């Protein structure tokens, strides 16, 4: 009798525990969805700090949400001045020192798509999504959600969001050792109405050099370019032709798992001034891998571990189309 009672109690405990875990996973997913929605819907202005290795930079950011989509402006306050303004279908990067403005227009109707609810659910395939500790950031009480990768092909992320609005206050990327790869953290933030002139560039840029990326949808596979074996969990999200700078045509394929993304750039070797340096390199939180394939330079760039970037680079192939 006592044994039976003990067994029943044990069962109850196990059940309760499993239920708590399930609940917490569901809660974490709900919080994650809330963060994506807040990014889409909120207007705000604030100052955030970006940290990566030894680099620390402060930037001012303003976002004005509206029925036709949001307009955003970010201005880096440290080091070389630069400003980026993003409207519904165009990104402009202002570089006052070189009097250059880089323009990138979206050709597809989807413009800058928000993550669809099912795409957010798909993240659970490659990441274990759990709740983190509640902390205070820039005066806001924040709850956290942790995305722990299920393999070592991607990084992990901790996201802290305002309990009331869901606004993302801090985002940390960590590697398999738990070390910080990069971090964004608001130092000051005001959520609410923003005057329209706050999202306009402060540069006249009248006589500046304009570098248009001339992005156009493409089928690089038809020209003979393929990525042999896709990285587990990553799928191709876009394939375009574009210009990298004034006169550098390139093909670009982007692979993503919903959090991380890796771009494959293909450029003809002919007419390139820069010497080819094949092999792995890194810049900031990005890993880069350069190869030469069939008289083309293949440059793979990713916000993913070096091994993932190299694995994609190694499988880039050219076969003369029949």
């Amino acid at each position, binding site marked *: 009798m006592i044994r039976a009672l003990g067994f029943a109690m044990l069962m109850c405990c196990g059940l309760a525990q499993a239920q708590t875990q399930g609940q917490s996973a569901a809660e974490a997913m709900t919080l994650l969805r809330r963060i994506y929605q807040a990014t889409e819907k909120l207007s705000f202005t604030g100052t955030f700090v970006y940290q990566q290795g030894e680099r620390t930079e402060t930037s001012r950011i303003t*976002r004005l949400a509206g029925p036709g989509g949001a307009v955003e402006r970010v201005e880096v306050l440290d080091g070389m001045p630069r400003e980026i303004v993003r409207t519904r279908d165009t990104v402009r990067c202002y570089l006052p020192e070189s009097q250059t403005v880089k323009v990138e227009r979206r050709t597809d109707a989807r413009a800058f798509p928000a993550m669809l609810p099912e795409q957010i659910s798909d993240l659970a395939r490659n990441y274990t999504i759990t709740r983190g500790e509640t902390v205070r950031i820039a005066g806001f009480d924040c709850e956290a959600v942790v995305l722990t990768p299920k393999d070592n092909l991607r990084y992990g992320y901790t996201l802290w969001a305002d309990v009331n609005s869901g606004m993302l206050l801090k*985002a940390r990327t960590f590697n398999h050792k738990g070390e910080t790869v990069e971090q964004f953290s608001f130092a000051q933030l005001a959520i609410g109405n923003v005057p329209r002139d706050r999202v306009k560039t402060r540069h006249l840029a009248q006589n500046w050099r304009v570098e248009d990326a001339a992005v156009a949808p493409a089928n690089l596979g038809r020209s003979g370019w393929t990525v042999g074996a896709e990285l587990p969990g990553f799928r191709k999200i876009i394939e375009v032709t574009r210009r990298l700078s004034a006169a550098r045509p390139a093909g670009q394929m982007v692979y993503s798992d919903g959090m991380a993304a890796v771009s494959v750039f293909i450029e003809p070797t002919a007419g390139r001034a820069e010497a080819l340096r094949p092999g792995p390199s890194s810049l900031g939180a990005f890993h880069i891998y350069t190869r030469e394939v069939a008289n083309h330079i293949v440059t793979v760039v990713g916000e993913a571990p070096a091994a993932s970037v190299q694995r994609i680079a190694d499988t880039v192939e050219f076969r003369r189309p029949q």
Partner: protein
Amino acid sequence: MKARISALIDDQLERREAARFLDELRAEGEVRDTWRAYHLIGDAMRDTRMLSAGFAARVAAKLALEPTVMAPSRIASAPPRPRWHLLSAAASLAAVALVGWVAFGLQEGAPQVAQVAPPTAPVPSLTAQVPPPESANDYLYAHQGYSPRNSLQGVAPYVRTVSGEAGTRKR
């Protein structure tokens, strides 16, 4: 004794005998001194570039100072070994390395000596890093437009792709 040393140098000793003799060589003493002297004579006769005096002793001393990497795993339950044990292990390694090096220099493929594998520490396979492309910022910026981080954080992630570091800027 001297005949045996000579035979070993000329690779004329039987394998088992050679092994026994190499054991003797591991201990400091007359045998080892003779071994060294024979090589010195050989080198002088062939007009080989001379090594400075006490070269072998210095190599051995440096080897003895090196941490003895035996295997990557640690045996937790083994009793602590006395220090002289470790030192003698290092010394014998030094002797083997020395013999291997000398014998190799004398004749092509001295079999029994060449088979003594040098102690190998586990070396991680690293692909040599190259400097990032000069136009790396162009790639990062072009990539950022399609990063899923944009739907999570808006325009903020762009700051990491437009670096203010002069070294990576296009000139």
